[in-house]
């Protein structure tokens, strides 16, 4: 014999992005902390040693922030004009920065005054960095030259002037202490070896290069310029591996995560995209308020710091995860008592008495079971169900409609309840998954309460709102249909084979019927 079957609440597939491990991982950050700087932030660099402070270069200052502080721990402000590209050394003790006046300064983290100053560039120096042997610095300036400096003697070792435009980015190899790359606005990336007089390799990017990055293994090189991010195989002589075009404005910065599995790119289009370095597919993306100039990820991916053109520094910390384990530990003993005896296997001679499993019905199901349709509708119009799971409300309405008792359930309500109902309908009627049934509901409400229209201002307002919502939806659908028509003609001219467009005008006919009913 059949038991009562509860109302089936339709599960709708979640639209939009699918939940993958990556989305779960990258979503695990707290709400961002915003810090206002004086100018556009051109570089963020994390100290490689704990506690992982980071240096932020903006305008004429370099601020150093701690992990949780929102105020700078330390400030280097000995620049007359803008400072550029403050970068930590591997041991986290020294910091080097270029400047608008063409000099490069080397700071001790603990001190204030520069330890060394390297003069030689005639134009602003936008990129500086340490080579991996810790004793040399490379730099690139707007005078088209890339130089190599010796730290102890503060002298220039070699100067390469092979670029034909501003040099704006560079990166040193972690594997070989003599190798570094610079990218320039002349659309090329050049690989230099300190032991030779000329560049070792030239890679044609195709757009002004904004950022370059070498993989920790030194075998792969990533360059960003224009809308493209390109990956090159250095060991194969600079062969293009893959070209990514996921941004719709210039890509300004690149960054690898700590494991080297993911590549991050920030762009003027306000997005940070995360790629998998195995498939080079976008696995996640972040959205920011304004154009992004710089981006950095702390070791262990604990913090993402993004600098923007309007001088706002956006800091995201990862959520702590320890708490969950603790709460589980606490519950264990109760769980054990709960399952006590469950694992007991009955012996052969034992006489088993099985207890019938009692099914727990939801409140609306209980009411529907006893055919109390009006009360069932009341039950699903309570705030938690109505607001959080509108699909339950709609499913019950549909079930009532199926039973033919929807009209009587809707009838005989006071002003407050009608107000509630109408608010719900007006808000949800435009959602395609609810449209068919809510149109019927709205139709019935207007039918039932037509005689009393005008007696209550609140209800009248809700009716107007409903009308407005439906009117808007109809306009929207008309526009969509127009677009569809345009696309059809385009497709028809391009290919003979018809592509199957998804029809978006499903709800259109239905909304029109209610519109005619209302007028």
């Amino acid at each position, binding site marked *: 014999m059949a038991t009562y*079957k509860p109302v089936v609440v339709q599960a709708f597939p979640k639209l939009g992005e699918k939940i993958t*491990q990556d989305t779960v991982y990258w979503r695990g950050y707290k709400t961002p902390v915003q810090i206002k700087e004086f100018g556009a932030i051109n570089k963020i660099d994390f100290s490689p040693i704990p506690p992982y402070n980071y240096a932020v270069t903006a305008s004429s200052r370099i601020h150093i922030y701690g992990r949780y502080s929102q105020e700078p721990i330390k400030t280097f402000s000995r620049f007359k004009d803008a400072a550029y590209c403050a970068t930590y050394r591997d041991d986290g003790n020294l910091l080097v920065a270029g400047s608008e006046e063409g000099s490069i300064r080397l700071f001790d983290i603990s001190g204030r005054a520069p330890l060394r100053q390297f003069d030689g560039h005639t134009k602003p120096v936008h990129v500086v960095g340490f080579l991996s042997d810790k004793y040399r610095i490379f730099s690139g300036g707007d005078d088209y030259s890339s130089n190599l400096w010796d730290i102890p003697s503060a002298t220039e070792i070699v100067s390469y002037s092979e670029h034909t435009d501003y040099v704006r980015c560079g990166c040193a190899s972690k594997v070989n202490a003599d190798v570094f790359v610079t990218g320039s606005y002349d659309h090329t990336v050049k690989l230099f070896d300190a032991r030779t007089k000329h560049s070792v390799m030239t890679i044609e990017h195709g757009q002004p290069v904004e950022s370059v990055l070498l993989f920790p293994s030194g075998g792969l090189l990533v360059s960003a310029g224009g809308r493209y991010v390109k990956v090159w195989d250095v060991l194969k002589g600079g062969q293009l591996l893959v070209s990514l075009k996921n941004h719709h404005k210039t890509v300004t910065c690149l960054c690898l995560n700590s494991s080297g599995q993911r590549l991050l790119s920030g762009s003027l289009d306000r997005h940070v995209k995360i790629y998998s370095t195995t498939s080079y597919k976008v696995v996640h993306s972040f959205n920011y308020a304004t154009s992004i100039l710089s981006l950095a990820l702390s070791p262990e991916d604990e913090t993402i710091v993004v600098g923007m053109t309007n001088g706002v520094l956006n800091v995201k910390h990862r959520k702590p995860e320890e708490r969950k384990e603790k709460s589980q530990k606490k519950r264990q003993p109760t769980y054990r008592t709960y399952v006590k005896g469950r694992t007991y296997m009955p012996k052969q001679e034992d006489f088993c008495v099985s207890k019938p499993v009692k099914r727990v019905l939801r409140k609306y199901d209980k009411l529907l079971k006893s055919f109390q349709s009006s009360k069932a509708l009341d039950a699903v119009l309570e705030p938690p169900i109505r607001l959080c799971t509108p699909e339950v409300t709609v499913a019950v309405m549909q079930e009532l409609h199926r039973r033919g008792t929807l009209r009587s359930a809707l009838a005989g309500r006071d002003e407050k309840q009608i107000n509630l109902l109408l608010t719900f309908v007006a808000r949800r009627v435009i959602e395609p998954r609810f449209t068919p049934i809510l149109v019927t509901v709205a139709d019935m409400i207007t039918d039932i309460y037509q005689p009393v229209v005008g007696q209550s201002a609140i209800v009248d307002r809700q009716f107007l709102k409903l009308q407005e919502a439906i009117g808007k939806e109809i306009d929207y659908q008309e526009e969509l249909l127009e677009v569809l028509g345009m696309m059809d003609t385009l497709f028809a001219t391009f290919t003979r084979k018809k592509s*199957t467009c998804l029809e978006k005008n499903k709800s259109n006919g239905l909304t029109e*019927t209610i519109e005619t009913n209302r007028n």
Partner: protein
Amino acid sequence: YLLCASGDFVKMYSVATEETLRLLGGHADLVTGVQLNPHNHMQLYSSSLDGSIKLWDFMDGIPIKTFTVGCKLLALYALASYEDVLFVVVPESAERDTFQLVSVKLPKAAGQDVEAKEMSVVLHGVDASPKCIAFGREGEYVASVKEFNLQVYFFKRKQLNRFSVSAVKTKSGKNHFTCIACHPTEDCIATGHADGKIRLWRNFHHKRDYTYSTLHWHHDAVMDLAFSVEGTNLLSGGVESVLVLWQNGSDCQKDFLPRLGSPIEHISLSPDGALCCTLHTDNRITIINSNLRFSKSIQGLIKSTDVKTGLVVDPRTKALVLNGEPGHLQFYCLQSDQQLFSLDIVQRQYIHQAGLNQTDLVKVAFSAQGKWLATVEEREDVTDPELQLKLWFYDEETQSFKLNTRINMPHEDHITDMCFRATDEVEDDSLILVTAGRDCVFKVWVMVEDTDPEAQQSVSWSCDFVGSYHNYQAYNCCFSEDGSLLAVSFEETVTVWDSVTWDLKCTFCYPPGKIRNICFGRLTCSKYLISATDYGFLCCWNLLSCALEWSAHLNILVLQPDPLSEYMAAVSWLSKESSLFVFKPNEPRPTYVQRNLCKEKIQLAAFVPRDEPEVIGSEKYLWLRRSQLFFLTDTQELMTLSTKSLEERLTPSSKQLAVEESLPVTPFSLLLGKHRQQQSQEDTDLGKLVVRNKREQDSPAVKELLHTPAHVLPSASFLCPIFINSLLISKENKSAEEVPDEVEMKSEKTEDDSDEERDVTEMEQEDTSPVELLGEVTCKLSKSQEKELRKIRKMDYSWISAF
């Protein structure tokens, strides 16, 4: 035991095991009433429309006596206080629609067939339904209801009291009487009304001072009422499929047993009051304990109002699959006449109420290996019809189907046809489902891997391709045997599509009439496409030359290909009778024709593969070698064609032509008795033993040896080789002899099995002669039309090429 009238038989079921124990057959027409003999509870009276009352010993299944009354008997009542008198309802001779209750005196003559002519009229103007008459306490009075009148007749005083209720038409319906029951010990009559009220009448000895009280719970007509044995409780049932137990006749104390599955038609109590059983409209009996707990249910083929799904064969169990209870799919085993299981497809609460549009199952399709099941359910509604396509996956662990994907509104309008691509390969990644809809498109659904790590299942289904043709409504779809081609019919045109690239390959058009059915040929005939149209044409197209091969003028209702051979069965409807044509697509002449298959319209047909190919001698029945053909008619009778001659067919093991009586509704009356059943089992055991013994004595040599006296025999050394030889030969012979021998023995037993079976076979034999003649006529017709058709076709092509 539970006894129940079913068609021409009285069936005896075991209450404990739900099995059919015995089939009491002998009536020539519908059995209308069954009553236990009140003086001997091992005996049973049964009445039938053929005008006879039979007295049975139902334990042994032997008819004791047959009383011929001579006119149609519509209901039967037996009373303890009147020996040798039975009450029956017969039609009044003068008018057609009036009936009277008469008492029949049973003569005490010896012999099997006795005529009972002594009749005296008790009541005039009664209702034909057996539920409308009840006998009161100790048989003192009889009460009958018809429309708005209640008649009570007292036997002793010979007084007739009439009462009537005023006819009130309310929203829920009229308040006329529907059924009646009398209290077993008190003077109290309970009547049920069509508006759901139950009235308890008391003090009806006086014409004026009668009183009644009303009980109201049912919202629709009360179908049956029954008092418990002590009279303390009243049971009532109706369309709501809820059994209501009223205690002490009061309105407030009642118990319910809800959700019995389908409307209750009859309620019956066992004489000791321990069990109660309800009969349902869908051919089912439910047995209920005295404490109102569901205990068992006896069900065969469940009858549903409309078999929309068609007859489908489950490739896994070879069971016939069709609509069962509302929203359910029943798997019906043909061999054992049992429902294997019922699959809940809709998964919604079914509200038993008239005038509600309920969701119902309309289409079913199995994949070739039975691993996937696709179902379509829809709810008719003026404004927004609901449609759902569901795909079920067969779970090996639980041995049942599990819901995999649910698709809301797969088409904008009704789905007309659905089929899977039949692939022989075991890997089912290439499985494709095609649905054709009235919204002028057909859609192709494929399985996709789910990448979502949180999803429970690895595959789901999604739409791959939408095809349409000139905005015509799609009616049928069909895959060719190797799955490379898909044929979709759009009104008058058949389109053939490539199943890999989904390109339109070619179209066939046959102007008069929309296309009803299409199917591809199988095996050697796989290059042919057969279609049947509305205006009675059956056409066969050659796919290689894209030309019409042949056509015939036949009003085809059902076209069904045999999945295991190249034969196809077509059922046509001509002048109020159905005929069956079996043909191979490569030859226009039918291989087998049977006129007069039955008088009803045949709605559906299905080939059910046999477990092992049957050995068939005659050329004519060669097409039935691999599978068996089943039909479902308008009146929901399931029939099959059988090839064997009369004697062979009547083997009890294979119930050929088991015309499953799905007509339980009509005049059932029902009795319950509790007895021991050991005896019957012993009987059957004995029977088998006897058979075995006889067989051993078959060889004449052995017989001779054993029967000659010892002193006449030669020496033992001489006899030994003969004896052994005889044994050897006898073994060889056995294989040949055994079969007919066995059959004969069994056929004796079951000769009285059914008259209907015999009728059909006679029909078959008669038909053989005119068959050839008729076949020729159709062929000639087709040839003359063929020429016409070719012209039309040429025109048609030029029209298409213009596009």
